[in-house]
């Protein structure tokens, strides 16, 4: 058995903290908790956890500062915990280096899935330093072969335009993770692209019509309005 992975929870609400701690311990993680940003930072630097769960509304520090401080010395996965109505904070947190976010209130299965995804992505990056990421994306009939540049749905080849293919592969290589509008625009259209996300959303609509049976009930690419897009995690 692999040694237990350790998770640091930085959260000031005692009841939420203890509920997360119970869940994670029961699922085989080693858990440390910190009730303030200062404590969290010092535990993070001294113990180097495998993942950090960070509440954005801490009493002593701005969550964004914590993300930036940690990012200055480590790329360990950070998952941000936020309230539903704070789209802007979520986007800022993701753009300043958080790996993912989870909206309060969340179920335990959702939390565990996010943690697994973040840990796996981190693992991939450290395993495959230099080489390209996973060679194939595969989920429920949809296959993307990154080497052959081939997208198939239930065995049928799907024809995508250059931009559409780039978008799908970007999302697929980060499957399970939410990508913000700005992140996607930067990667597809370059840093000098017009900051208007209309063109991105039109392209996503085209992709949906090619991949999804019913664009209103997507199976592969999900919208997180106000934040970005998330692709269903690959099964390969």
């Amino acid at each position, binding site marked *: 058995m692999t040694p237990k992975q350790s998770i640091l929870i930085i959260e000031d609400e005692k009841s939420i903290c203890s509920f997360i701690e119970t869940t994670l311990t029961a699922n085989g993680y080693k858990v440390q908790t910190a009730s303030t940003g200062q404590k969290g930072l010092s535990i993070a630097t001294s113990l180097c956890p495998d993942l950090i769960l960070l509440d954005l509304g801490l009493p002593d520090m701005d969550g964004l500062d914590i993300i930036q401080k940690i990012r200055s010395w480590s790329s360990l996965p950070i998952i941000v915990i936020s309230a539903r*109505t704070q789209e802007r904070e979520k986007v800022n947190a993701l753009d300043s280096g958080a790996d993912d976010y989870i909206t309060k209130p969340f179920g335990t299965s959702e939390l565990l899935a996010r943690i697994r995804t973040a840990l796996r992505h981190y693992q991939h990056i450290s395993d495959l330093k230099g080489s390209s990421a996973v060679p194939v994306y595969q989920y429920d009939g949809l296959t993307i072969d990154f080497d052959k540049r081939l997208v198939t749905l239930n065995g049928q080849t799907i024809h995508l335009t250059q931009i559409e293919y780039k978008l799908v592969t970007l999302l697929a290589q980060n499957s399970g993770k939410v990508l913000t509008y700005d992140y996607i625009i930067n990667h597809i259209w370059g840093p000098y692209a017009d*900051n208007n996300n209309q063109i991105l959303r*039109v392209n996503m609509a085209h992709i949906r019509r090619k991949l999804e049976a019913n664009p209103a*009930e997507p199976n592969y690419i*999900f*919208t997180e309005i106000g934040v970005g897009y998330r692709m269903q995690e690959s099964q390969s």
Partner: protein
Amino acid sequence: MWKRLENTKFWRHPVARNITVCLGILAIATGAAAPVAQFSTNDTVNVAMIYILSVLMIARYTDGYIPGIIASVVSTFFVNLFFTYPYMELNFTLEGYPATFLCMLTIALITSAATSRMKEQSRILNERDKLLMEAEKEKMRANLLRAISHDLRTPLTSIIGISSAYIENNQSLSGEEKDRMVQNIQEDANWLLNMVENLLSVTRIRDGDTRVNKSPEPLEEVVSEAVQRFRRRLPDAIVTVQIPDDFIMIPMDATLIEQVLINLMENAYYHGNPSKPIKLSSFILDNRACFQISDQGPGIPDEALSSIFDGSPSSSQSSDSHKGMGIGLSICKTIVSAHGGTIKAGNLSSGACFTFNLPLGENTNDTKTKYFDH
């Protein structure tokens, strides 16, 4: 410059302002009358008209009757002094003069009095309108509060009841019973959370004016996210979704419209037949995006149709917490109205049907403003 003048302390003092307005307008009138009199001698009719116009303006832009009356008298004297023979001399006794000047004075006085009264009346009307609107808002707020306390109390009672029963009878309860009790608590807590989220949405509608932060959002993304969130909360519910093939952008606050869709679907789930599918369809009609949520339940009783969005709990359902969608529907109405749309409830042959629409408007390019500029 004018704005700056309006904001000075001097300008806000009523007497000082009235005098300034009077003098200013009279000066302009005199300035305008001079060339008229110069080019066409004996054209005193036009000169008199100019002064009467100036009296009217003075009555319009000053407070009370006095400035108008003073201006009337001064104008009459000015016309006599500057523009009628003998020039630069007051003389009301020449042939025909008494009648002319008396007429002018009377017309000026009546005009100024009528204008002042009109102004006063429109002010009173405005105030009455404002009071009425305030009363209407107060009534809505009271209704909402009543609905909230009603809808919140029931699940809270059940949570408190079940949890104390659990603690008191811990020994005698079987594992299965305990599981069911905790499940009930979870259900009620989830329902409460939904209610709180509803109330939070309403605070996104800025106080005072009923306007929202709109940005163009694709119809399909909003619908799919709403359905996804709804399914996560009620995994047993069956929903069929139908949207137009075209790519449609609608200016809206997506969080709020999602809330409306979720509320209506939840309403359909609890009031309709949970084992039959809920149908969510959307279409374009008259430059408006329409959303229709229909269920296959017993429908809405006729007597409830008229007041269904008012937020007042109907008496027949008062004992059942989950069925009391009082607040949910009234919040839907608030949100849709704030977007400039309309919502209505009705019955189809198969069950209840809620329809709301949103104006499509101009396709503005301010997508970013909502998330990054405020």
